[in-house]
């Protein structure tokens, strides 16, 4: 019963708007009591967002394919996928994405792609970012906290190049380092600002050693609790699937990223993705709101 009362104290502090310390977070991360962690994260997310859950419909297209065919009119963000080998390819992909996107935002690439392209050109990350930005890129799809050496320098570089509403991500799972990374993200936000979202679940899935449901739920909840100064905790709808993504909403996530923008899918299960997203949000007791790629709500 003592364990319960520790959580009750933490819950009181969270609902009083107090930020938990690094020690609190580390202690929470060490317990297998997933429900208590979830309860705390949920209390915090409700303070920040009430019952609102946002989602964004994204048209993804590989850099070497035709954007005109891939981008549905209902998409709110166009995302360039894949890693082009030259800056020229990257720029032409962004340009054609922007042409199709019109007013809608274009995202794509990882910070690592930026470094690679810079190295290939004998140029600097700053130059590459500036050129991508001019071509129409508004956001990097991935800024992987577990794969950059000096994340503060990266954030500063992105700010200088005019990138706003940054989205920090995780490339591959390494559960034990997760808490420290989330605390670093929060510290970064305190110092530099401009971070809109954290995507705490790994982008690369290892089929031989997939993360477990506990791993994922805990990763989401710890992200929420460790970084109360970052507005959005998001889960990739297509990567993680409806069941886990929905459960994540009850563990502190408030945004579903990367909902398919096409209403035609080959497989009957994924029929009418929009309806399925909204149904899942509502069945978890939340209210669904669509947003655009710049995190603005779209009134319906």
């Amino acid at each position, binding site marked *: 019963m003592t364990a319960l009362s520790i959580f009750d104290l933490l819950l009181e502090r969270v609902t009083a708007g107090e930020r938990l310390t690094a020690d609190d977070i580390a202690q929470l991360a060490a317990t297998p009591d*997933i429900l208590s962690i*979830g309860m705390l994260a949920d209390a915090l997310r409700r303070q920040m967002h009430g019952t609102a859950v946002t989602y964004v419909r994204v048209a993804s297209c590989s850099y070497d394919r035709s954007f005109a065919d891939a981008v549905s009119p209902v998409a709110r963000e166009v995302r360039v996928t894949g890693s082009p080998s030259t800056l020229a390819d990257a720029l032409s992909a962004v340009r054609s994405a922007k042409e199709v996107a019109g007013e809608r935002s274009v995202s794509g690439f990882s910070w690592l792609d930026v470094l690679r392209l810079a190295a290939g050109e004998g140029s600097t990350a700053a130059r590459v970012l500036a050129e991508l930005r001019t071509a129409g890129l508004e956001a990097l799809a991935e800024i992987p906290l577990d794969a950059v050496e000096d994340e503060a320098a990266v954030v500063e570089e992105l700010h200088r190049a005019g990138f706003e509403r940054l989205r920090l991500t995780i490339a591959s799972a390494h559960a034990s380092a997760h808490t420290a990374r989330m605390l670093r993200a929060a510290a970064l936000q305190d110092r530099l600002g401009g971070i809109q979202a954290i995507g705490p679940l790994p982008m690369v899935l290892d089929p031989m050693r997939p993360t477990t449901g506990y791993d994922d739920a805990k990763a989401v909840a710890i992200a929420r609790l460790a970084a109360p100064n970052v507005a959005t905790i998001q889960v990739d709808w297509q990567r993680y699937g409806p069941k886990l993504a929905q459960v994540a909403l009850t563990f502190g996530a408030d945004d579903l990223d990367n909902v398919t923008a096409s209403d035609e899918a080959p497989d009957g299960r994924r029929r009418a993705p929009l309806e399925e997203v909204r*149904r899942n949000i509502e069945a978890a007791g939340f209210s669904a709101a669509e947003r655009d790629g710049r995190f603005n709500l779209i009134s319906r």
Partner: protein
Amino acid sequence: MIDELASKVLDGSRVTADEALALYRRAPTHLLGRLADAIRARRHPDRIVTYIIDRNVNYTNVCVARCNFCAFYRPVGSSDGYVLGFEEIFRKIDETIAVGGGQLLLQGGHNPDLPIAWYEDLFRAVKARYPEFKLHALSPPEVLHISRMNRVAVPEVIARLVAAGLDSIPGGGAEILVDRVRKLLNCYGKATADQWLDVMREAHRAGLRSTATMMYGTVETDEERIEHLIRLRDLQDETGGFTAFITWSFQPDHTERGGVEATGVDYLRTLALARIVLDNFENLQASWVTQGGKVGQLSLAFGANDMGSVMIEENVVRAAGASYCMDEVEIVTNIEDAGFIPKRRNMHYEVLGDPIFRERDVPRMLALATARAEGDTSVPDELRQYLARSRAGKQLRLAQ
């Protein structure tokens, strides 16, 4: 109101149908989970989470019941219809034993061309070859079907099957034990709610243990879901014969009924509610086959204490779109990762030991087997010895 109910549950008192409904509708998901977890912890303070290595074999897909939520069955005379031969079943048993399993979960369609003698002969043949091997077979509607086709009363069907080697009965075919729902699902004819419960009562009286199940997410109301649980709880008070409860969501793909599947959070809430209402059930299984490994594992925080079967074969929910697969290594990883201690068990929930793959080399199985290879339309030889009832069945025998 919810707080009062919560402390009532934590005190260990029984909830009424109305209280269960209030909890299900109004309690936050984490609170439901906590209550269910507290009950789980009380019943299983050792933090052991069990699983069984067995094989889910569907001996025939020919079925006259035509439940509209089922994507598995084929009508009598269909060219896709099959009956497994005894040799095929032996082969499946050999494969099961090779990965450390000791039981078949044997269920099938309501095939009019399999008389009771076929079942008796099969069970005897299995027991003659594998005396230690267990048969967890024939859900209540199948028992009823055999009773009707052969004009033998249910208690006698059970007695004869037990004499032939039946060890226990799976709780399938319960769906929702409310006749309004059963009529809408076209499964009232195969067994009414009372009939399903009566077969279980007879089986328990005969000394068999069984599981109980619930398939939710079709047309039932919340009240009817709870009525189902209460009916199971009542019978358990009476007989004590249920070992465990398993619930899963209706899998709509390729079914006549169609529609959408209930969500993951619905599953966790339903599971937690079941743990709260079924206060006289020792064990609750997680349905990772329908929910996937992740929500399957999270079930352990919402009242489940058993990961069910290390699935070697699955045909029924696979036909309806679910195709999650986990072998023993993965099940054990999931249990340990959630902070529990994995133990192998038998159908009676007796602990058999630690994971088998830690004791000896077993092949990893990363894909589920099926009842039959695609396109295999062979007809087993021994079928000829059994009288067919349907016209199609008779023609098949003649053609053999």
